[in-house]
């Protein structure tokens, strides 16, 4: 059963920079990009990998969508070089300061504009703010089911079977399509390195940019005016390190005291 899959990707500042180089602009309450590179949010890459593997097995088409600034075209080129068939950028000043609900609305409208779809995949957590809200809001907008923290997806008998990771193991969920899944990493969905020839081929593909007007968006539902969430403060956690010497006359006594202290601190 060929699957038409939409993958929503977000471009974020490389989260693997050293903590010492993480800076916040107090005015905008946003992380300062500085000289750090922009990358696809990590779990979105896992979602893309799941989509590409499904396409390789089942046939179909993978379309990557990103709502963001013009720079997000680079993230979409990366998605194309990994194996997405098409990529669409939604970039409009009118939607720039939308909150999670606004972004979910825009993504849903873009997904509907793409046409028929069987699966919508997103990362389970955004790589910058650690948000988990967009997938559920988006499913609501589309009027389809949402399964979160999915690591693997199989197509079976006209349905999809989603492996949902829970605290003590996993659940297998059968779902009719279309359905939305937010993807978590596991050893089967490690993002592939794009091959050089695919990077070259991706370079030749054009990425259409859709504006608010192309999606016939309700202006009251996007932008800063429609946002229901406001960031009031952002700060770096203060880390303190203390050294405590554990006393004891013999190694055995020191070990016993150490264990007692760790228990007291509820660390063991």
């Amino acid at each position, binding site marked *: 059963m060929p699957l038409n899959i939409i993958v929503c990707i977000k471009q974020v500042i490389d989260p693997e920079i050293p903590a*010492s180089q993480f800076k916040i602009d107090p005015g905008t309450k946003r992380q300062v990009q500085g000289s750090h*590179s922009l*990358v696809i949010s990590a779990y979105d890459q896992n979602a893309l990998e799941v989509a590409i593997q499904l396409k390789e097995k089942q046939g179909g088409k993978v379309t990557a969508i990103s709502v963001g600034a013009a720079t997000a075209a*680079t993230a979409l*080129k*990366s998605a194309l*070089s990994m194996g997405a068939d098409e990529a669409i950028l939604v970039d409009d000043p009118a939607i720039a300061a939308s909150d999670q609900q606004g972004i979910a609305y825009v993504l849903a409208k873009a997904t509907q504009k793409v046409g028929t779809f069987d699966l919508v995949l997103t990362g389970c957590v955004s790589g910058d703010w650690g948000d988990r809200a967009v997938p559920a809001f988006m499913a609501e907008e589309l009027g389809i089911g949402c399964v979160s923290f999915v690591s693997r997806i199989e197509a079976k008998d006209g349905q999809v079977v989603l492996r949902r990771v829970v605290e003590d193991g996993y659940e297998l969920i059968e779902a009719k399509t279309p359905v939305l899944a937010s993807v978590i990493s596991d050893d089967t969905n490690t993002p592939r*390195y*794009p*091959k*050089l*020839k695919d*990077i*070259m081929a*991706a*370079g030749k593909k054009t990425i259409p940019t859709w504006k608010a007007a192309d999606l016939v968006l309700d202006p009251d539902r996007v932008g800063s005016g429609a946002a229901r969430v406001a960031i009031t403060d952002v700060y770096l956690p203060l880390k303190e390190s203390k050294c405590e010497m554990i006393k004891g006359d013999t190694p055995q006594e020191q070990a016993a005291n150490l264990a007692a202290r760790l228990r007291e601190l509820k660390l063991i």
Partner: protein
Amino acid sequence: MRFELTQEQQLFREMVREFAAKEVAPRAKQVDEEGVFPHETIKKMGELGLMGVAIPPAYGGAGADTVCYAIAMEEIARACASTSTVMTVNNSLVGDLLYRFGSEAQKLRYLVPLAGGRTVACYALSEPGAGSDAAGQQTTVRKDGNVFVLNGTKNFITNALEADFAVVFATVDRGIRAKGVCALIVEKGTPGFTITKVEKKLGIRGSSCCQLLFEECRVPAENLVGEVGQGFKIAMATLDSGRIGVAAQAVGIAQGALDISLGYSMQRVAFEKPIASFQAIQWMIADIATRTEAARLMTYRAAWLKDRGGRYTREASMAKLLASETANFAATKALQIHGGYGYIYDFPAQRLFRDARITEIYEGTSEIQRVVIAQHLLS
């Protein structure tokens, strides 16, 4: 004038950088200390297109340009110079040679698997008495019916231990020097072809370096690359291209030296301050960064000239000269910034210091590069 990489080149750099950080760098210490050939890494690099970067897809390559090749060499060398050495021999010394001068049959038989990373090859030009004087080949070749018969010794041949085949240079007449040189493809296991010595080296210890012996070694006539007497021209043209690869490798080593210098100087505390706050350290870092950037620009320009189809012998030599001397400068300063820790094996500064040294020697010493540059200016 635009000093920007294309979007594809930028994406490619990101891919190789990530691959190098995750797959190459973690093995660099072991590859160096145990002197192990990075088979697994080379296989993965082949799958990504890194073993035939500028070779067209019809011959198993990725079909990118020489600038991409320089980018890839730089990023891999930044993580592990040994691995980049294997890469440069496959890509430019043998891959580029077969693509430019090989017959269609030779390309299909030897270039396709080589560019895909499924085979490894070596380039056998140097001899015990013919390094910089490449026209003075002592290895002989004579035609005997449908075969060529090789006799002689080759020295310091990179990748030879693992190579599935070698491109061997030999002369039909020692008296006519360059005009008598031929290039022949010799497969591993051909009777009369043996490896007589595996050298122990100061650096790039993950790539092998061997002495080869040819004793009445009979090679099919169809394995002659080009024509009898064209070998010297083929060797020199290939070295022009190879020098871009070594220049990029040297830029990578210099960048690696800058990386570790920044990291170490910001976290190492002396006199209650990170040593990066002292001007003595800042100047060394600034000098490393400036020279590295200059070497990078010259290397990219030589690669860009090659892609445009123009002459680039002088520019490739200039890039190789500057980049290799920069790599040694950068590695020396990085070691100094690390102080005592730079001198011990637990830290990578010493590895870069040892690896950098070869870049001033192979594929034309710094002295030969100066000769090439001066000849172009004075002719």
